[in-house]
């Protein structure tokens, strides 16, 4: 490799390193700060799991992820760069936004499942005009909705919330199995189911507060 060819482009042929924009020296591609001059780096295209130092898996220890998230925000948030140069402020904003997106995705089981499906090249059902192709699930959802409409006291709704939550938890366990086996078709189906269950819980909760207000 010739030493005249290293232009200041920010990326090097060797994927593990890039040029630090501040001291122009080498810095690891995934580093948050330059180990030589301490300058904040651009967030780069890390996947959400890697951003938290995790292997790709549906099973996530959210408390541990949150601890990492808070620790990282302490260092990266724009509030830490209020007296720095505009460029450092912009990079900090990008870093904080990437971190927020990663955390929001991993935190929510449906978002996490959608994300894992997309990483595997599978487009999840529902949303964006995609139709859901699971008559059994649609029927089940319709029945749940009717039962919710008929419910006229908080106890009944509470029982329903409890039940959908239980089902959601079981569904999450099955999803974890499916993702672990790379069974993406099963995972896709279960993801749609989980999304429905979450939506029903939400609607039940809204109904409960309507009943409470009445």
């Amino acid at each position, binding site marked *: 490799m010739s030493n005249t060819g290293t232009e200041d482009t920010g990326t090097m042929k060797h994927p593990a*390193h890039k040029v630090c924009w501040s001291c122009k020296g080498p810095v690891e591609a995934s580093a948050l700060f330059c180990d030589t001059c301490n300058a904040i780096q651009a967030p780069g295209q890390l996947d959400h799991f890697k951003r938290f130092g995790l292997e790709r898996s549906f099973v996530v220890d959210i408390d541990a992820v949150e601890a990492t998230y808070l620790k990282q925000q302490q260092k990266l948030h724009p509030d830490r760069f209020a007296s720095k*140069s505009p460029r450092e402020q912009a990079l900090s904003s990008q870093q904080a936004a990437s971190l927020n997106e990663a955390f929001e995705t991993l935190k929510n089981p449906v978002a996490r499942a959608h994300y894992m499906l997309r990483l595997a090249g599978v487009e999840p059902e529902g949303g964006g005009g995609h139709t859901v192709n699971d008559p059994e699930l649609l029927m089940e959802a319709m029945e749940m909705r009717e039962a919710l409409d008929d419910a006229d006291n908080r106890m009944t709704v509470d029982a329903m919330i409890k039940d959908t939550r239980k089902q959601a938890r079981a569904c999450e366990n099955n999803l974890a199995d499916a993702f672990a086996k790379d069974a993406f078709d099963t995972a896709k189906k279960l993801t749609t189911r989980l999304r429905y269950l979450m939506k029903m819980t939400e609607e039940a909760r809204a109904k409960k507060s309507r009943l409470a*207000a009445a």
Partner: protein
Amino acid sequence: MALLQIHEPGETPLPHEDERQIAVGIDLGTTNSVVAISRDEKPEVLRDKSGGNAIVPSVVYYGEDTPVVGEAARDHINTDASRVVSSVKRLMGRGIEDVKSLAGTLPYDVEVPEKSDDDGAGPMMVRLNVGNRVLTPVEVSADILRALRTRAEESLDQPVEKAVITVPAYFDDGARTATKDAATLAGIEVLRLVNEPTAAALAYGLDNGAEGLYAVYDLGGGTFDISLLKMQKGVFQVKATGGDAALGGDDFDHAIAEHLLALRKDGGATDALDASDAKRLLKTARKVKEGLTDSDAVEVAVDLNGTKTTHSVTRSDFEAMIAKLVSRTTAITEQVLDDADVLPEDVKGVVLVGGSTRVPAVRKAVADLFEQEPLSNIDPDEVVALGAALQAEALTGGSDNLLLDVTPLSLGLETMGGIVEKVIDRNTPIPVAKGQEFTTYQDGQSAMMIHVVQGEREMVDQCRSLARFALTGIPSMAAGAARIRVQFNVDADGLLTVSAREETTGVEQEVAVKPTYGINEVDMANMLRDSMVHAREDMLMRLLTEARVEAKRNILAVQAAMDADHALLTPEDDKSINDAIAKLEAAMGGDDRDVINDAAEALENASRPFAESRMDSRIRQALTGQNVDAVN
């Protein structure tokens, strides 16, 4: 090898001490404003010259001379009411549709200017007719901020140019931008816009170091906000917020005023009120409200149209008048708890903010809802400014604590049929960057309208319109073939920038969402210049400071590299780099920005060969399988 100066990542040394200016916290309220300063994490409010009141009423009197702000302006209500402007915060960033909903509640004339072609993309902001002047709410707010700045400068005996300013969590994008513009007009650089409830929690929480979930119930003069915050490991996270931007203590005053008018009518008086009468009556009503905080009944004399009547208002009368308003706040609170999937008993503490929380019925409603006595050992009128001051200190001097805020309202785009497609959901942590892909629906479609809206409703016309712009120059393609990516960026102040890009060709357009003031951008620039005599110098000074900060960073970075990879430094490079550093340092001592920038570029050129050999060395190490981490 020289000893390295060690800093935590992100904590490279601050600029020179003399560049570390003092920053204050400002609570720019609907009814009252307060300015505070924090030193060593001990915040205190700044009082007037006599050391008396911390509160500056957000009232401006536009007489023949320079505007008068505060208590002195309020005194003019009895003599020259038509030139007194109050509660202007309610109009910040607001357009015609909002004014309709506020009709009759504002004690002055508002007009909405005709929209002309060269105006910006956002909705048109209203203007006020005050005496013989036409004013925008931004200008009125700037006058209030100027008065607060003067108070701070007199009290601290030094120039104050930076501030953290608080806004209601529920403030939409237009109102936030308008607030920032008002600060610019007043010659204040906004370090950060912070949500009022967050600031209040900051003032309460940090000394106690108490981890857990807190609710902040903020009922001010004109706005109601409720926020849920989680405090853990030195980080304040806003979990959910809600509120009503047009509900507050002013409504209590209106209720009392209407009650008094009704009592007079029962007594046979017919009152046709002009603007001046209305303002005086509201002032009386406010006194009644304040009296009822400690007394069970208040005697009041009303003197209108030459008829003087006296009435007795009891606390239970008052509570009946405001019962509906109070239950609106508790309903919104329950909604926010629901949103966050939290039960009232999960909340560890409730913080009260805003003068209206002094009303016993409000306190009782909050205590009943959360089944606990709310915290109120900090003055509810001062708590927000105190928190803002703490945040101002944290931003200029560093801090162990961090605020993580969220978007108060969902942001989306208009799609076919006037349906809103949400891009960023409410309560998403900021800063946030999110994109969504859209496509054309007609063959050969060459442009696409991008309509940005804010709100929770399904239909566009039920949400607030923030901006409209067209992405043009889309090459001719079949319907559905174009891939248009619309990117939303919300920064740490909660301000939105939207860009649209056709992915196959790279055609791109970007707008910062800004409200328009019924005057074009040139007029706005002139206004900024007129109001700040030193505007140009200020801007040049800022650029100069920036160049110095950047140069300093540059030198530190190169020196750190020289220390780290000393072995790779040839004697020639060592000399030329050190020479360039010396020249840059000399340039930094002067005040010519171009000279500094040229010297900075010279340093970059001088250090390039060294940077390249560092890079090569690292790659060689990597290629020979040597672990980079092991070398360091």
